């Protein structure tokens, strides 16, 4: 009975587009979306640099990047907190407990995923593609662009995987955002808080939405991977 009632209220909150619920969803999408844009803007050129250039210790750098894909969110949250806290080196920016701090933390979490998976996609492109574009008169820059284009499905998978990770993340944003109602409270932190308070309806409603987003992301990933593996 208790579970049924909770689910009923949760669905009612979703169906009636509860203002608080919408605000939380919107903030979550804004924070994670911004983090994704930032991590892609940095991660993609980084992946291209790693993919196309040769330099000493490149292998070590790639291994580090792969390791950072599994960065514990609470550790990232702690480090960002230390940097942004009043006595920290970036304390003068007064970003702690703001959505901006949450974006920074999530960008750090998403960056290795975007960069590492994009790098794998780029180096995974058949070398014959690069040779073919050279034979057709492409400049080195055009060859690189062609390879990036061929790697597009892998790159998109990386970006989507990173979005899935940051949307579901709770540790880092809880530490640097502070879970302030109407300001830094996002879906995951609200679920944690409301569950703690015994207010399961809102937590369930957000859980359903989070799961739906996750399902949507995975469906999109599946479509992209399917499109990217066309073969004769």
């Amino acid at each position, binding site marked *: 009975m208790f579970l049924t009632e909770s689910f009923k209220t949760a669905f009612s909150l979703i169906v009636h587009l509860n203002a608080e619920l919408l605000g939380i969803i919107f903030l979550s999408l804004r924070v994670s979306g911004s983090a994704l844009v930032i991590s892609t803007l940095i991660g993609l050129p980084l992946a291209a640099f790693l993919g196309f250039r040769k330099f000493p210790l490149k292998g070590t750098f790639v291994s580090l990047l792969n390791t950072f894909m599994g960065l514990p969110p609470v550790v990232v949250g702690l480090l960002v907190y230390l940097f942004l806290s009043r006595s920290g080196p970036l304390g003068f920016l007064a970003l702690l407990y703001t959505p901006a701090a949450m974006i920074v933390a999530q960008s750090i979490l998403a960056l290795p995923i975007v960069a590492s998976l994009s790098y794998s996609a780029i180096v995974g492109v*058949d070398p*014959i*593609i*690069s*040779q*073919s*574009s*050279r*034979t*057709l*008169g*492409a*400049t080195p820059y*055009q060859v690189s662009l*062609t390879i990036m*284009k*061929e790697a597009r*499905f892998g790159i998109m998978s990386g970006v989507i995987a990173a979005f899935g990770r940051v949307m579901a993340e709770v540790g880092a944003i809880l530490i640097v955002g502070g879970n302030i109602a109407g300001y830094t409270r996002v879906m995951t932190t609200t679920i944690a808080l409301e569950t703690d308070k015994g207010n399961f309806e809102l937590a369930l409603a957000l859980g359903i939405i989070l799961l739906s987003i996750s399902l949507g992301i995975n469906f999109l990933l599946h479509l992209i991977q399917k499109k*990217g593996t*066309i*073969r*004769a």
Partner: protein
Amino acid sequence: MSLALTASHVRKSYNGRPVLEDVSMSFDRHGVYVMTGTNGSGKSTFLRISALIDDADSGEIVFSSEEGILKHDIRLKRRITLVLPQIGIFNTTVFKNAAYGMNIRGVPGAETAKKVEEVLAFVGLAHKKDQNALTVSSGERQRLGIARALVIEPEILFLDEPTASIDEKNSGIVEDIIMKLKAGGKTTVIMTTHDKDQAGRLADTWLIMHEGRLIPHS
């Protein structure tokens, strides 16, 4: 304008094993040059060096035209092209694959579309233009590789084993394309093949690569 190519004392080794030993040959404008030779005789290596894809260890490749001797820069590289034995197909439509060379040269869309349609019809792939190029057969893939090269109207077209991995029917179509190019008189074709009968059918000049040296077929 048209290009002539002269190779002088070209040498190339891989891991200390000499592949080309002092190859010298002149390729005048137009006509079909066919190189035959055993596996590992150095045909493909010579073709790649001549097409400016790989560098020789020593020796010289000189391109000349009415303008005189040409520098090995991107402008020259855009006047020649090599079709590799394995065609690197881009994951997009047949049309966009064929249009690649014109797109990277910044040719306007309408002009590109007209030329691509024309060349796809020439190689018999017009009906497949909207199909994803990764889904075409190996013979069609080979023809697409040639179409992609022809779209840019190369003055020298290098073909490395263009019929090695395709069936008899497609092989015949590729030979027809080469014969039409020969009749057109605008493009010099320098190709390699294992098929001596094919060499006999196509060659204006038949050359044999033997132990790293290029000699005329007697």
